[in-house]
Each structure stands twice: as structure tokens, then as C-alpha cells.
């Protein structure tokens, strides 16, 4: 079982006890690594109903079998997994860079944190020597400052650090965990879980060897991937990067604007990937082992935000741009930089500010609540101020720091109608009113609003299906990409490299086998993908989520796209959603309520988890019936 480090590190922050356990081959083979392994460990080490911020909710970080090897983009990933404080269900978020590489080299496939430290601490992993260190002096610092401070005090520049910023400390429910300055495990608020444990950072120095069973076999595969990564399959990421989406989605009228009020943005050219690359991008860098390189580092050349240097991707650009009606790229980049500084999910922060602007424009909140801020769409100065207030829980920011779903419930009136979220997680930058395959993918995603769990916008955007129509067959499309994406997130390779696996599971299985020495067929790997998706579902069922939660934001289902043009009038009705859900559940082998059938669980080798669904599949006799019996 090479490739894997073969060890799981357990850290009880309450007692200070630290121990290791060997990774069983069956667990590795079934759940692969990354999110799969992390989710299984979370399920096994948590109790149903635990509050995400309670010491009872463990936080897991896992690498994949490919981490630490030369597999392009595979060498560097890590995934955080915990019960999300936004969804109260399965939360997972991946990140890349160099942290995962270091963790594998230190000799761990996963670290599980239990309990809560009495005072702020950080974990210092120096290969086999693991210590809980005082972090009082780091409290309040940004992730970047924390990284620098830890490298300085431990006197080694090559130490890799994943840490939270002030937002995580203050339990802002959209807080993220940042490594390598600009890389974030962004979604689901796992930074706040880390904060709830008083865990400021994880610092790792790894110096062990990572071995593979047959280096010639591996190098042959790596060579093929290198060639593909230089070709058209990775072109987008090597050139304009994800901001290429701006003009693509604009053309399709699928770019949510002003908190999903409209689906096109008037200032799109001035925030496009083309404009960005020409004027702002100073350098494109790569993660450990990557042969593509995608990380566009932008620098603001002049004006009040001159010198702001930040990584830029479409999603945060959209969230703090069109979603807030902001067309000033200088300010959007400043927003991303602030998000990284405070340690918040830069998608969700834009979602929340857009939501607040919508409430302000509709008179649901006024200057009294905003502390005098004119929170209109397009006011970029107000947007930046709100990013700070939310991150530090100041004024109105305190309520908004709960995320749009919980904040809307607290604000009351019609506020929930303006809260654009799925399962509590703020939406991402696709207007799914006119992308109906994607709409299904979003609705069923086990971690809430997300384009990366399913990639189901693909067939919609490429015109492979009629994107305005909900019909049978979409369930299969969503299931297939979900299963593939889940493996991508478990191995872990980068989603941006997905196009270079020309033969999907076959290419990925070959890499897995070459690295681990465990022969894995493409079909084995596909089943593993299916298994892990069922695992996500099972966890959520255990936490009492039902079909009711597989739903879409109010605006998506009630307000047709108003923009003149191709998408005008499109929205997703309850009827359409039901049709899509029925189709998907059927393809998945789940009941009409979205509960995996016992046969399905047996088919994918999850007999040990049947207990979760048993009561729900065979409902206890109702009271009425019971009474009858007594008669």
C-alpha cells in the first residue's frame, strides 16, 4: 500500500492526547482518500445531532493517495471535512498548494481533531514529533501573517501552514482555512469549526520519502498527462483562467447579477478574463507537482487600491462583482484580498453582501441597520466596508456573519426570499434558472450550493442539452459527473485537470494503481465514486436532512429571468424540480424521499451503514395503526 502514508493522526485538543493509528487497506481502497476518507472518518467519529461548534464535532484533514507524488496536480491536495456550521450536514472543502504535500511527507493520510483547546493553540507536526503549541500571540492575525510568524518562530521557511484568520476565530459561519497565502479550503465554513476548537493553525514539516512501487510505470503515465496538460484540455486554465467564464456566461444570460435579480451584467467587459489578463495579471504560478499552472496572481496597478496582490478566480470575481453590481475590478480584487486577509470564503462573502444590498434596496433594512452605509448595488466602497464588518462581526455584520439563511431568519419580513442559498450555503456564479441540468446538480449536492460537486453546468453551457428544459435523463448526467468528481476530490487531483483524463475512470484508476500498487479497475473506481456520494447522503440523512432540503433558492423558483434575450422568462418550477429529483433518485437507487435503498448500499459495499437508513425505510407503525392493533 505505497502512495498512502499508512497512518492517521488523532489529536484530542481537550485532553492534549495525541496518538496514531494505521490506515487499514480496506478503508483506503473503499474510500480512496481526500473527501472520501475524510467523510468516512467524520461519520465514524461523530455522533448524530452534534452542534458543529461543539467539541463533539471532529475536524478532519485528509490527503489523497497521490499527494506527495509527481502525478500532475495530484501531488498537492488536501481536504478538510467536518459537520458544516452552515448546512448542519456534511461539510467538505479542498485546497491545493504545498500543504498536502508536506502532510504526506510527514507521514499522515489524515489528521482528526477532537474536542476544544482551552486556549488558542496551533498544531506543530514535525514528521513524527507532534506538539500542541501556544497560539496566543497569533490570535487576531491573518492567515498570511500567521504563516509568516510560524515559519519565523520555528525557523524553517519550507514549513507549510494552514490557518484561520480573525473570521474563523469569531465563528463567522463562512470562515475558511487558508494555506500557502492564497489557497483556501473555502466552502461550508470549516474555518469556523477550527475556530470553535481554538485551533489557529496546523504547521507541518515533512521530510519522509514518498515511494511508488514502479517508477517507470508511473513516469510513463505522468508523461502522458504532462503532454495533455500542455494541450487544449487545459488551455483555459493556462491562459485566461476561470475568469474566461465572465463573457461566456454573459452571452448565455447565465451570470447572476445584483443577487440574482438579473442574469446579465452591464459592465462585463471591464471585469472579463481578457481585461484582467491584459491589465492586472502579473504572474501565473503552479501548485506542487502541477504541469498546468493556473494560479493567476493579479496586482492592482494604480488608484486607491494600488499594489493589492491577490489570486483571482471567476467565482469570487463574480460574487464581489456582478452579484453586488460592482464593475470596478480594482475594488473586486481588493475584496478578494480582504477575504483572504480575514479568512472568509470569498464566494459566500459576496453572496452575503449582495443579499444585504438587495434587502437595503427593498427597504427591508435601512441606514439604521447599516450604520449609515448606503448599501446600494454597485457601491464598491460599501461592499468593502461590509466585508470587514461581516468578517469581524461588527454592527450589521454580526447578523450577516451567520450566512444568508440564518441571517434572513433573524431579520424576518421577506428576507428569506432574498437569501440565495442551498442548504444554507450561498450560491455560486451560475444563474441556474436557465441551466436546468445544473439546477438539479445544485439541488442534490450534499454540501449545499456548489458547482464543483457535479459540474452539471457543463452540458448546459456546451449546448449538449436543452438547458431551459427539465426532462428525464438529467438525473443520469448529474450522477455520472458526481461520481467522477467525487473521485477527483478523493484522489486528490485538481478539478481544473479534469479534461486531461481523456478516459475518465480508466486514466484515474491507472494513476491510482501505479502509485499505490493496489490494482484498481476503472469500474472499481466508479463504484468507489458512487459509494462516496452515498456516504455524503447517508451522513446527511443521519443529520435528519430529507428530500425537502434538496431544493433551490426562492428566487430561482419564483422570479423568471427578466433580461431581454435568450434566457428571458426562465425559472425552475416546483414541478420541474420534482421531475428532476424523481429522475435522479431513481438513477441513484434511492427512494422517492431520497433515501438509499438497502440493495443499493449492499451493491456498493456499504452493508455496515445500512443501520442509518433502516428506520427511515421501514417506518415504525404510525400511532393510529398501533392503536388499532391494541383494539
Amino acid at each position, binding site marked *: 500500500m505505497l502512495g498512502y502514508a499508512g497512518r492517521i493522526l488523532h489529536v484530542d485538543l481537550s485532553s492534549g492526547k495525541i496518538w496514531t493509528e494505521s490506515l487499514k487497506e480496506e478503508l483506503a481502497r473503499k474510500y480512496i482518500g481526500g473527501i472520501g476518507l475524510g467523510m468516512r472518518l467524520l461519520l465514524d467519529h461523530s455522533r448524530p445531532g452534534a452542534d458543529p461548534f461543539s467539541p463533539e464535532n471532529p475536524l478532519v484533514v485528509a490527503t489523497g493517495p497521490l499527494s506527495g507524488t*509527481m502525478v500532475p496536480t495530484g*501531488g498537492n491536495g488536501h481536504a478538510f471535512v467536518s459537520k458544516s456550521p452552515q448546512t448542519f450536514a456534511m461539510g467538505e472543502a479542498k485546497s491545493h498548494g504545498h500543504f498536502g504535500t508536506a502532510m504526506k511527507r510527514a507521514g499522515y493520510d489524515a489528521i482528526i481533531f477532537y474536542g476544544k483547546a482551552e486556549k488558542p493553540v496551533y498544531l506543530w507536526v514535525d514528521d513524527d514529533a507532534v506538539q500542541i503549541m501556544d497560539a496566543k500571540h497569533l490570535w487576531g492575525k491573518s492567515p498570511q501573517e500567521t504563516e509568516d510568524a510560524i515559519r519565523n518562530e520555528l525557523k524553517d521557511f519550507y514549513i507549510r501552514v494552514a490557518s484561520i484568520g480573525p473570521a474563523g476565530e469569531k465563528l463567522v459561519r463562512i470562515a475558511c482555512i487558508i494555506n500557502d497565502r492564497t489557497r483556501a479550503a473555502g466552502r461550508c465554513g470549516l474555518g469556523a469549526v477550527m475556530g470553535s476548537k481554538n485551533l489557529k493553525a496546523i504547521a507541518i514539516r515533512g*521530510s519522509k520519502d*514518498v515511494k*511508488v512501487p514502479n517508477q517507470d510505470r508511473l513516469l510513463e503515465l505522468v508523461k502522458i498527462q504532462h503532454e495533455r496538460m500542455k494541450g487544449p484540455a487545459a488551455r483555459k486554465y493556462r491562459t485566461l483562467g476561470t475568469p474566461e467564464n465572465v463573457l461566456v456566461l454573459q452571452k448565455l444570460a447565465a451570470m447572476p447579477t445584483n443577487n440574482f435579480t438579473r442574469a446579465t451584467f452591464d459592465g462585463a467587459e471591464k471585469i472579463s478574463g481578457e481585461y484582467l489578463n491584459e491589465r492586472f495579471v502579473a504572474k501565473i504560478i503552479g501548485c506542487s*507537482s502541477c504541469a498546468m499552472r493556473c494560479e493567476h*496572481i493579479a496586482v492592482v496597478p494604480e488608484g486607491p487600491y494600488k499594489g493589492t*496582490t491577490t489570486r483571482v478566480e471567476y467565482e469570487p470575481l463574480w460574487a464581489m462583482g456582478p452579484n453586488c453590481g460592482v464593475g470596478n475590478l480594482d475594488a473586486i480584487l481588493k475584496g478578494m484580498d480582504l477575504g483572504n486577509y480575514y479568512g472568509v470564503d470569498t464566494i459566500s462573502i459576496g453572496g452575503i453582501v449582495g443579499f444585504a444590498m438587495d434587502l437595503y434596496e427593498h427597504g427591508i433594512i435601512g441606514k439604521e441597520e447599516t450604520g449609515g452605509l448606503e448599501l446600494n448595488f454597485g457601491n464598491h466602497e460599501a461592499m468593502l466596508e461590509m466585508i470587514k464588518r461581516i468578517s469581524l462581526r461588527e454592527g450589521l455584520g454580526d447578523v450577516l456573519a451567520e450566512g444568508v439563511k440564518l441571517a434572513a431568519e433573524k431579520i424576518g419580513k421577506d428576507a428569506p426570499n432574498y437569501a440565495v442559498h442551498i442548504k444554507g450555503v450561498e450560491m455560486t456564479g451560475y444563474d441556474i434558472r436557465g441551466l436546468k441540468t445544473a439546477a438539479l446538480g445544485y439541488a442534490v449536492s450534499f454540501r449545499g450550493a456548489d458547482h464543483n460537486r457535479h459540474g452539471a453546468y457543463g452540458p448546459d453551457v456546451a449546448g449538449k442539452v436543452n438547458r431551459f428544459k427539465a426532462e428525464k435523463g438529467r438525473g443520469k448526467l448529474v450522477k455520472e459527473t458526481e461520481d467522477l468528481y467525487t473521485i477527483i476530490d478523493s484522489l486528490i487531483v485538481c478539478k481544473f485537470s479534469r479534461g486531461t483524463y481523456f478516459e475518465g475512470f480508466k486514466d484515474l484508476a491507472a494513476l491510482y494503481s501505479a502509485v499505490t500498487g493496489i490494482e484498481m479497475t476503472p469500474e472499481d473506481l466508479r463504484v468507489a465514486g458512487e459509494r462516496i456520494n452515498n456516504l455524503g447522503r447517508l451522513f446527511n440523512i443521519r443529520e435528519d436532512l430529507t428530500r425537502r432540503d434538496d431544493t433551490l433558492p426562492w428566487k430561482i423558483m419564483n422570479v423568471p429571468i427578466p433580461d431581454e434575450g435568450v434566457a428571458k422568462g426562465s425559472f425552475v418550477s416546483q414541478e420541474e424540480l420534482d421531475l428532476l429529483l424523481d429522475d435522479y433518485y431513481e438513477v441513484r437507487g434511492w427512494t422517492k424521499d431520497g433515501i438509499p435503498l438497502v440493495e443499493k448500499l449492499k451493491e456498493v459495499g456499504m452493508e455496515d451503514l445500512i443501520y442509518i437508513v433502516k428506520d427511515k425505510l421501514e417506518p415504525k407503525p404510525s400511532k393510529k395503526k398501533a392503536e388499532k392493533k391494541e383494539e
Partner: protein
Amino acid sequence: MAAVPKAETSKWKMVSCDPDKCTGCTVCEYICSLTKDKVFSAQKSRIRTMRLHPLVNISIACRLCSPAPCVTACPRDALKQSEQTGVIIIDDDKCDGCSWCIEACDYGAITLHPELKKVRICDLCEGDPKCVKWCPEEALDFTTKDILAQKARIAVTKKLFKESIEVAGIKT
């Protein structure tokens, strides 16, 4: 015994990194340790990357200094420089891992092998450096100092004569 002809130091070829192209991906480290030690390990790589800031990335291997300060610094005469290639040859029987050479090297191009406790320096893979071959960005070059200087001259000339080049449609 036939005398090995002594090469001019300007003819020595070395691994050089163009920081404008380097993305900090560390593929050079992966392939180096795999080639030399059959494992993936940054510590065992003879070439190391340094990302000081997202905008500042470079890979560093032996610069073939002449005279080489590492050779001078070694108190046990364990290091000598090949007159033919400029490569620093390590006598493992003499090297005791004292690391004076590491301190003497201005570029951090020498590492101490964590298990063998002997120093390791880029040996150019017998004239076919694997890192150069595998660098996805072609940021690494196996070249002489003469050619590096020439490249710089071409670049600066292009810059100085940008207008004429454009007007005349000169292909460069």
C-alpha cells in the same frame, strides 16, 4: 593515459532557471529525487525551488563556480571540481557531512542527504539533466554561461530596438 582535454569554464553547461517562467511547481524536485534516490523527497533533491512570494519563484541548482568556494571550504578534500564539466565530484569516503561546503555556497545549491549524511550536489545527470527534460514550463535550461549572456543580449536588444523591429517586420 590520454590526457582529458581541459574545457574552458565558459563552455561548462549548467542547469539554469528563468524566474520569469518558473511557476514554483517543484516538478524538478520530484524528478530529481526520483532519479537519484528512487523516491519523492524535496530534501533529497539536488535542485530546490524557492517561492519567496507568489510573484517570486525560482529553482536553484549548482552554478559551477570557478574556483568553487565549496571545494575550497572542504576541510577533508572530499570535493573536487571536474575540469571537463565543472561538476563538483563528491568523495563519499571522505565526506563526513560537516556541511562547511553548504555554508560556503552562496546559492544554497548543496544539500545534506538526510540518511547518508553526505552532501549532495547536482551532477547534471551525466549531461542529460532530468529536471530540464521534465520542467513543464521549459523554465529550466541546460546551457553555458556564454549562451545565457547571449540570451540576455538578445532580449535587451529586442527591447531597445522594439520600434525598428516592428516597423521592419523582423522575425525574432
